[in-house]
């Protein structure tokens, strides 16, 4: 199929009101979800997932991508107005966004956040379109040993860059891998940790695990401290971002976008490190470097470009290799599977219409994000006023319906509650949940490819170093493990 044929196939799939409406609703939900502190883009995507069940696959995935993109931008609104990042990715935005809000220039900061986010989003989407197909065609040469080496590499990165403590991140990933072993054995079909219960034979439901880990701990945390309040939103002020300010920050925005694309395309790094790297690069090279941290508009631009540049790029490993780039794409990979689609190189052959439909949708999403974001900036006051003590019970009820709907099974609701308590314990003991979830997804793939490789080679371990691709991934893994070791050994600043 030629490039033009592929575009036409994609257009035929998304060239209708339903697809664009799904995308639009997704962006609105994402911006609201990201803008409510304590809800986060991740939880918004997880809670939206069950609503995609009755939808066409392309519309459901566009809805989730809309939530993802809207959520990342939405997180910047409370970061600037109430110094509380709606998502971890917006942490760097506080550094200059909040001082600007204190000066009565919140409108200017939010306007720049929107412009930078949309610009970075376009750059990120274009990079996805350019590189995903190329990477997928390369990955067609992969067999089980290559996939095993790739997934092992992904796991080292994920375990290594999660949260404040690398060891706790590793512990979290190992726990995810262990939980993924529950169910029937992949080769012999014998029971593993099923305790004779037929509900456990298919393994633990992915949706129940992810909603339990990300949504329920917030409800339980509310029980621990019901008086936690949202803070007082500041007025937007009368000063708005000008085209000249955008032009002056343009180089930082593009650089931040490229940083976002590079870091986003590496599985496991995510948006927050990208935002901080982009911010620090902007501060290092800016002629106003003395003003950074005190309310510099270029700082807001760089941070937002850094975190939004990741949004499209995390889809590169997802679509091309079937490996999630971060925790949100780990949830989106679940949506693909629920709709009978398996992301990876074969999808570029079997479902090329869906791939190009997604590309078209993503390009349109940048424009929609700009429109929705402009309104959201002014409407945040109402979003922030939603009483958390009513919001959290609503989240709990939504979780119950959503998890039940996956398999029509009350057992899954119990799994969700159990995972919720595990997630809460992890929250209290500073163990990050993201490596757990990603390892839970990658675990069966890792084991499956390992055993397939063993079957192929008749038990000869040399199959794992059979060519340059496996060597490359093992080298990357060694570098990642060395970096983990170095960071564990390095003295931490007090």
């Amino acid at each position, binding site marked *: 199929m030629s490039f033009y044929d592929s575009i036409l196939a994609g257009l035929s799939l998304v060239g209708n009101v339903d697809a664009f409406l799904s995308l639009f609703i997704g962006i609105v939900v994402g911006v609201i979800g990201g803008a409510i502190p304590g809800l986060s883009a991740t939880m918004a995507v997880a809670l939206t997932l069950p*609503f995609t*069940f*009755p939808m066409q696959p392309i519309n459901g995935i566009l809805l989730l991508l809309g939530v993802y993109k809207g959520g990342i931008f939405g997180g910047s609104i409370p970061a600037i107005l109430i110094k509380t990042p709606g998502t971890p990715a917006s942490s760097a935005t506080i550094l200059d966004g909040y001082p600007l809000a204190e000066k009565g220039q919140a409108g200017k900061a939010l306007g720049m956040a929107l412009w930078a986010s949309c610009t970075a989003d376009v750059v990120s989407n274009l990079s996805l379109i350019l590189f995903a197909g190329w990477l997928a065609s390369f990955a067609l040469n992969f067999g089980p040993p290559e996939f095993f080496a790739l997934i092992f590499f992904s796991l080292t990165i994920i375990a290594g860059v999660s949260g*404040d*403590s690398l*060891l*706790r991140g*590793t*512990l979290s990933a*190992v*726990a995810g*891998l*262990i939980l993924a*072993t529950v169910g029937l*054995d992949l080769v*012999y079909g*014998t*029971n*593993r*940790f*099923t305790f004779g219960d037929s509900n456990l034979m298919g393994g633990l439901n992915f949706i129940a695990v992810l909603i339990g880990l990300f949504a329920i701990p917030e*409800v*339980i945390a*509310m*029980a*621990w*401290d*019901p*008086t936690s309040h949202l803070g007082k939103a500041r007025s937007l002020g009368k000063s708005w971002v000008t085209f000249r300010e955008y032009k002056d920050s343009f180089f930082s925005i593009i650089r931040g976008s490229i940083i976002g694309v590079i870091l986003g395309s590496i599985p496991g790094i995510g948006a927050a490190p990208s935002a901080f790297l982009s911010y620090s690069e902007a501060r290092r090279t800016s002629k106003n470097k003395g003003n950074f941290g005190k309310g510099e508009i270029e700082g807001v631009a760089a941070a937002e470009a850094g975190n939004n540049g990741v949004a499209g790029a995390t889809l590169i490993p997802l679509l091309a290799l079937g490996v999630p780039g971060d925790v949100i794409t780990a949830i989106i990979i679940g949506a693909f599977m629920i709709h009978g689609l398996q992301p990876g190189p074969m999808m570029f052959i079997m479902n090329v219409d869906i791939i190009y439909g997604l590309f078209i949708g993503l390009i349109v999403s940048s424009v929609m994000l700009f429109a929705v974001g402009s309104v959201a900036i002014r409407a945040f006051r109402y979003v922030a006023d939603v*009483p958390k*003590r*009513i919001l*959290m*019970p*609503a989240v*709990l*009820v*939504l979780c*119950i*319906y959503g998890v*039940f*709907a996956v398999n*029509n099974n*009350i057992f899954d*609701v*119990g799994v969700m*509650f159990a995972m*919720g*308590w595990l997630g809460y314990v992890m929250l*209290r*003991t*500073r163990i990050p949940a993201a490596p757990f979830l990603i390892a839970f997804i990658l675990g069966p793939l890792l084991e499956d490819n*390992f*055993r397939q490789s*063993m*079957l192929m080679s*008749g*038990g000869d371990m040399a199959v794992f170093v059979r060519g340059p691709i496996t060597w490359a991934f093992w080298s990357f893994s060694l570098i990642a493990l060395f970096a983990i070791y170095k960071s*564990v050994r390095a003295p931490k600043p*007090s």
Partner: protein
Amino acid sequence: MDKVLLKGLNRWLGVFTLFFSAFFAFYAIPNWVYSPSNIRNIVLSPTFWPYILSGISALAGFALLITKQPPETDQDTAGSANAELRPYLRLIVMALIMGLTMYLLPRLGMVWTTMLTFVGTAFFFGTRYRIAAIVCAVLIPLILYAFFAQIAGVAIPQGNFVRLP
């Protein structure tokens, strides 16, 4: 979070992980993983992968035990000084709400149970908007029922008493 627990958190986690790893390797895998007896290559056995994970978790536990923990920030320990019994009682009540929800789901049906769960949780959290909480408690489960049962075709449990169309 209690300051004492936070201070030695890595050590506690390390000890727990080592115990878990030993339990996993010496009790859980031999008893709860079934492996055919005629497997010639050990790496293809259903127990191989769990044993590998047990070993990795032991390594992680050992590393946690010997690694010096970085000092916690003020933010980490904020609010921990006045940690008392009441928050733990609230956690127990939350667990009871969840347990009761599980018990009632197949008996009362999902719609009625979630209405009670909503009201119970909102009042337990001490909402000041009681009327709004009751209105939401009725409307949200009904809207979700309408979506999942009528649009998505999910067989939402109806319970033994009042059945919805």
